[in-house]
C-alpha cells in the first residue's frame, strides 16, 4: 500500500511492546525446557526445523524424537539448539550456535512477538509486518536519537542514527544499503530512513517563517508520490511494488543540517508498460489519470471512460483493493506542485502518459501480398497528434516507411505489420522510460537547494537476488549487482574484523571474504566475460541468439568454474541455456532475445518527429537521443563523442551505472539492511519457513554467518565475562583484582582448550559454540547453588513448623498431666 505519511493528531501511541521483549516474556523464555545434550533441531518439511530430543546415536545416525515420532537422522542434519539465554536474541551473531535452524527460529520467535527488526552482525534484518506498528513516530524516533546501537533495541532508526553520528564524527560519507525481494518492505524502510534524516537534520529555523514555501524535508518526502505513481505497480506479491532501483543521496551542510538531496534510478521495468500478467497491473499513473480526480484530465488527453479501451494497460488487473486511485491522484497532483512543476509541465506529463495508452490502439494492416503495412484507420493517430501537437500523416508514414541511412544517403524502408507493431511498442516503452527519467531529473532540480553540500548519506533501495523459474537478461543484471554488493559487504566485514583483531592484539589471519566472490564477478564483467560477449554480439549485424550462446560456451564452458550447464528444466518450463554459480545459488539463464533487448532499437524517424512536436516535455525527454543517426544536426551536439556514441547498449549503460554506484559506495561507510518477505499471503505474524530460508541464503545473511564461524564470532568484554561466569570459580576469581586476570583464571579452572578462545586487550573471543558450553556449565552450577538455597529456605520453613509442633506437644503433655 502506498504509505503516505498522514500526520496524526494527539499523542503518539506507546511503541514499547513492538521494540522490547517484556519482562514477563523474558521470564517465560528463560524457563523453557532445555537440555544441552538432548535438545536439537531436525529438518521438517513444513516448519523448516522442529525441536526434537536426542534418544541415542548409532554411527552416523542420530535417533531423535520430534513431532510425535522417533526417526533416525544423519548426524549433519541434526543442529544444536541455543540455551535459553539466547531466546529472542537481538543480535544473532551473538548466538553460540550459529546454524540455520537457530537463525530461522530466532527471527521467527521475534517476529511473532511483533519484533520485526533483528541484527545479524553487521546486518539489520527487517521482516515485513504486513501491519502498521507505531514504531516510526516521533516518540519512537526519540528513543534512538544519539544512542549507540547496543543501548537500544534493533531498529532501522538505530542504524540511521548510527550513520548520522558516524558522518558527523568521522566526516565520512555514509550509505545505507537496503535490499530484499519484492514485497519485503525495502521502499517502506527507505522512506522511514529518509524521514528520520529529515527529522534529525531539519533546520531549526523552520518555525519562525510561516511562508507557504515548502521545506526541503517535505520536498524530499514529496518526491515519493511521484516516483511511486510512475515507477510502482501491482505485482502478484506486492500491491505497491517498486519496479526500479534507486539511490537517494541526502546531503548535509557543514553543521549537519539538511542541504539537499538527489536521486539516481536504475533499470525501470519497461516491459510492464505494454504488457502485464493476469494478476498484475501496469504503473499506477495510468489508472490515476483514469480516476476522474482531476476533472479536466481525460478531456484534455482525449481519453474515454473505459480503461479496457486501452489494451496496453488493461491486460491484467485494472483496480487494486488496497489502492484508491483517485486518492493517490490527489497526492500525485499535489506533489507536482510542491516539487515546483508549472501547470504546463504538469499537463505535458499527463498528456505523455496518456499518449502511451493511445499508442497501443494504433491499428495497422498488411497491404495486399506486399510486405508493407498501412494504417487501419487514423482516428487514434489523430488523437495522439492532437495531444502531442504533431502531424498525423507524418506519424503514420514514419511508422510504416521510416528513413534509414545506407552509406551516406537516406532511403525509405518498407515495414510490415509485425515490424510496425513492434516499433510502436518499443516507442511506447521508450517514451515512458524517458518520462520517468525526466521526472527524476525534475525532482533533483527541486532538491538542489543551492546550499553548501559537504557530506552525504546515500540510501540504496534495490531488488535483491532473483532466482525464478525463468531468468532472463533483467535477472542477470540484478543478480550481478547483488553479487557485487555482497562482495562489497564481505570485504567490509573482513576489514572491520581485521581492525578489531588488530586493536585487541590477537594473532589470527583472515582471508579476504570478498575474494570468495571474485571468480563469479570476473566471469560476468571481465573482457571476454558474459557482458562483453553480449556487447560484442550486439554490435555484430549477423549475430543471433544461437551464435551468442555458442560464443559463451566456447569461452567459458569447462573453463570457468562458475559457468555451468543448466539442469534440464521440468516439463512446461522454458529451458535455460547456461547457468551461473552465484554465491546465493546456481541460477539457470535463458538468453532468448538478449541481443534485441540489449540493442533496444527505436524507430529514429518517429523519434525525430517527436523531438519536433509541440509538447515541450516530449522534446525534452528525447533531448539526449540522437534521433536519425548521422542526421544533419548530429554534428552540432559535440563532435567530440566517439563514433557510435548514439548507440549505447543497455548492458553498457548498466555496467557504467553499476561501476559508478560501486565507486560511490566504496567512498562511504556502509550500513546494511536486509528486508524479508515473511509469507506470500500478506499475513501478519506468519513465517513461511522455506520462503524465509531462501531469502536468508540469497541476501547474504547466511553468508555473513558462514564467515563469522571461521573466526571467533562471540566476544565479551572482560567485566561482562567475569560477571556472568565467575560462579564457575568464585573463590579463585575473587582473588584476582584485574578483570582480565580473573577471566583468565575462570577459563583455567574450567580447563577450556586453548584453541577455543583468545584473550584480547579488552575482550575475550570465543569460537562458535563455546559460549553454549559455558552456559551449560553455568546453568549446572547455578541450578546447584539455587537448589541449596531452596533447601535452606525449606529448612527454614520446616523448622518454623517444627517449633509449632514442639509447642503443641508440650501443651499436650501439660494437658495430660493436669487431667
Amino acid at each position, binding site marked *: 500500500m502506498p504509505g503516505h505519511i498522514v500526520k496524526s493528531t494527539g499523542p503518539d501511541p506507546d511503541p514499547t511492546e513492538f521494540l522490547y521483549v517484556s519482562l514477563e516474556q523474558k521470564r517465560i523464555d528463560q*524457563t523453557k525446557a532445555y537440555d544441552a545434550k538432548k535438545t536439537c533441531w531436525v529438518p521438517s518439511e513444513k516448519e523448516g526445523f522442529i525441536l526434537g530430543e536426542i534418544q541415542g546415536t548409532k554411527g552416523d545416525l542420530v535417533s531423535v524424537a520430534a513431532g510425535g515420532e522417533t526417526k533416525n537422522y544423519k548426524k549433519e542434519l541434526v543442529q544444536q539448539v541455543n540455551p535459553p539465554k539466547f531466546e529472542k536474541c537481538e543480535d544473532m551473531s551473538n548466538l553460540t550456535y550459529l546454524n540455520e535452524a537457530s537463525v530461522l527460529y530466532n527471527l521467527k520467535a521475534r517476529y511473532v512477538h511483533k519484533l520485526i527488526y533483528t541484527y545479524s552482525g553487521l546486518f539489520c534484518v527487517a521482516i515485513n509486518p504486513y501491519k502498521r506498528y507505531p514504531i516510526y513516530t516521533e516518540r519512537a524516533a526519540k528513543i534512538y536519537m544519539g544512542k549507540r546501537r547496543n543501548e537500544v533495541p534493533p531498529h532501522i532508526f538505530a542504524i540511521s542514527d548510527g550513520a548520522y553520528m558516524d558522518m558527523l564524527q568521522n566526516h565520512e560519507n555514509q550509505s545505507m544499503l537496503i535490499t530484499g525481494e519484492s514485497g519485503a518492505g525495502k521502499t517502506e524502510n527507505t522512506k522511514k530512513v529518509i524521514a528520520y534524516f529529515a527529522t534529525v537534520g531539519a533546520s531549526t529555523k523552520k518555525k519562525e517563517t510561516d511562508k507557504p514555501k515548502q521545506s526541503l524535508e517535505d520536498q524530499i518526502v514529496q518526491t515519493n508520490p511521484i516516483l511511486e505513481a510512475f515507477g510502482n505497480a501491482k505485482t502478484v506479491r506486492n500491491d505497491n511494488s517498486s519496479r526500479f532501483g534507486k539511490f537517494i543521496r541526502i546531503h548535509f551542510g557543514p553543521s549537519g543540517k539538511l542541504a539537499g538531496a538527489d536521486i539516481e534510478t536504475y533499470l525501470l521495468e519497461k516491459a510492464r508498460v505494454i504488457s502485464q500478467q493476469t494478476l498484475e497491473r501496469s504503473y499506477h499513473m495510468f489508472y490515476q489519470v483514469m480516476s476522474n480526480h482531476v476533472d479536466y484530465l481525460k478531456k484534455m488527453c482525449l481519453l474515454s471512460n473505459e480503461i479496457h479501451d486501452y489494451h496496453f494497460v488493461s491486460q491484467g488487473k485494472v483496480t487494486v483493493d488496497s489502492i484508491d486511485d483517485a486518492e493517490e491522484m490527489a497526492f500525485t497532483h499535489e506533489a507536482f506542485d510542491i516539487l515546483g512543476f508549472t501547470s504546463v509541465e504538469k499537463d505535458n506529463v499527463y498528456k505523455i502518459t496518456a499518449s502511451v495508452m493511445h499508442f497501443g490502439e494504433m491499428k495497422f494492416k498488411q497491404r495486399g501480398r506486399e510486405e508493407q503495412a498501412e494504417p487501419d484507420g487514423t482516428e487514434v493517430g489523430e488523437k495522439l497528434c492532437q495531444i502531442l501537437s504533431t502531424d498525423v500523416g507524418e506519424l503514420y508514414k514514419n511508422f510504416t516507411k521510416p528513413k534509414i541511412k545506407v552509406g551516406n544517403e537516406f532511403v525509405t524502408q518498407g515495414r510490415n505489420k509485425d515490424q510496425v507493431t513492434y516499433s510502436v511498442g518499443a516507442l511506447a516503452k521508450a517514451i515512458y522510460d524517458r518520462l520517468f527519467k525526466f521526472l527524476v531529473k525534475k525532482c533533483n532540480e527541486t532538491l538542489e537547494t543551492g546550499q553548501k553540500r559537504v557530506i552525504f548519506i546515500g540510501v540504496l533501495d534495490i531488488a535483491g537476488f532473483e532466482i525464478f523459474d525463468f531468468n532472463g537478461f533483467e535477472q542477470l543484471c540484478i543478480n550481478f549487482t547483488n553479487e557485487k554488493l555482497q562482495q562489497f559487504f564481505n570485504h567490509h566485514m573482513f576489514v572491520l574484523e581485521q581492525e578489531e583483531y588488530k586493536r585487541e592484539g590477537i594473532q589470527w589471519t583472515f582471508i579476504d571474504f570478498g575474494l570468495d566472490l571474485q571468480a563469479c564477478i570476473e566471469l560476468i564483467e571481465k573482457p571476454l566475460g558474459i557482458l562483453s560477449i553480449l556487447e560484442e554480439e550486439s554490435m555484430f549485424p549477423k549475430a543471433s541468439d544461437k551464435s551468442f550462446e555458442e560464443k559463451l560456451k566456447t569461452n567459458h564452458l569447462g573453463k570457468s568454474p562458475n559457468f555451468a550447464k543448466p539442469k534440464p528444466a521440468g516439463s512446461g518450463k522454458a529451458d535455460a541455456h547456461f547457468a551461473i554459480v552465484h554465491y546465493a545459488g546456481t541460477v539457470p539463464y535463458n538468453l532468448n532475445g538478449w541481443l534485441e533487448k540489449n540493442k533496444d532499437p527505436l524507430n529514429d524517424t518517429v523519434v525525430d518527429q517527436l523531438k519536433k512536436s509541440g509538447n515541450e516535455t516530449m522534446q525534452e525527454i528525447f533531448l539526449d537521443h540522437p534521433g536519425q543517426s548521422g542526421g544533419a544536426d548530429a554534428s552540432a551536439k559535440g563532435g567530440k563523442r566517439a563514433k557510435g556514441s548514439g548507440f549505447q547498449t543497455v548492458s553498457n549503460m548498466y555496467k557504467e551505472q553499476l561501476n559508478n554506484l560501486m565507486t560511490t559506495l566504496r567512498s562511504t561507510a556502509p550500513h546494511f539492511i536486509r528486508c524479508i518477505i515473511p509469507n506470500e499471503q500478506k499475513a501478519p505474524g506468519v513465517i513461511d519457513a522455506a520462503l524465509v530460508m531462501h531469502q536468508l541464503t540469497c541476501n547474504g545473511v547466511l553468508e555473513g554467518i558462514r564467515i563469522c564461524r571461521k573466526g571467533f564470532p562471540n566476544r565479551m568484554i572482560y567485566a561482562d565475562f567475569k560477571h556472568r561466569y565467575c560462579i564457575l570459580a568464585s573463590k579463585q576469581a575473587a582473588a584476582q583484582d584485574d578483570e582480565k586476570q580473573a577471566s583468565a583464571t575462570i577459563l583455567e579452572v574450567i580447563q577450556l582448550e586453548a584453541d577455543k578462545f583468545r584473550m584480547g586487550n579488552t575482550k575475550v573471543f570465543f569460537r562458535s559454540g563455546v559460549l553454549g558450553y559455558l552456559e551449560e556449565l553455568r546453568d549446572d552450577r547455578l541450578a546447584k547453588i539455587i537448589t541449596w538455597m531452596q533447601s535452606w529456605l525449606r529448612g527454614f520453613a520446616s523448622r518454623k513448623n*517444627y517449633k509449632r509442633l514442639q509447642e503443641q*506437644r508440650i501443651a499436650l503433655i501439660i494437658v495430660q498431666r493436669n487431667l
Partner: protein
Amino acid sequence: MGKDGELSARDQERVKFAFSIYDFDGSGNMDAFYIGECLRALNLNPTLATIEKLGGKQRKKEKLLKIEDFLPIFATVKKDKDAGSYEDFVEVLKLYDKTESGTMMYAELEHILQALGERMDKPEVEMVLSELCDKEDEEGMIPFEPFLKKLCAMT
C-alpha cells in the same frame, strides 16, 4: 559427632526427640513422608534429591521408619559438606544485581526460586521471603545480603 561417623550422645538425644515429634501416634514409627521435615528440624538442609535418595516419600502411608532406620540417614546428611554456603549464595544473587549496588528485584528473587533448581511453589516462596526479606523499595528492589544473612543465621 564422634569418630567414624558415629553420632555423639547429644546428637542421638536430639534426633530421638525430633523423631518422637514426627511419631504422631506414639507407635515408635515415623512416616517416610516426614524424613525431610525431620532432618530439617534437626538443622540440616538436604536437597529434595538427597531426601528421595535416602528413602523419603512424596506421599504418606507408603513406608514407615523406626528410629534405628533414621539415625544413619541423619548421619549421612550431616556428613555431607557439599551443601552450599553464604558466599555461594551471595555470588549467585550478585548475578541479578544489575546496578552493582547490593540489591536485586524482589520479583526476580521470587521468580528464580520458582523457576530454577528444585522449584518451589508460589505460596511456599511467599511465606519464607515475607519473613526473611526487607520490604521492597519503590522500584521493587531489596538488598540481598541481609536476606542471606538471616537465612544463614537460622542454622
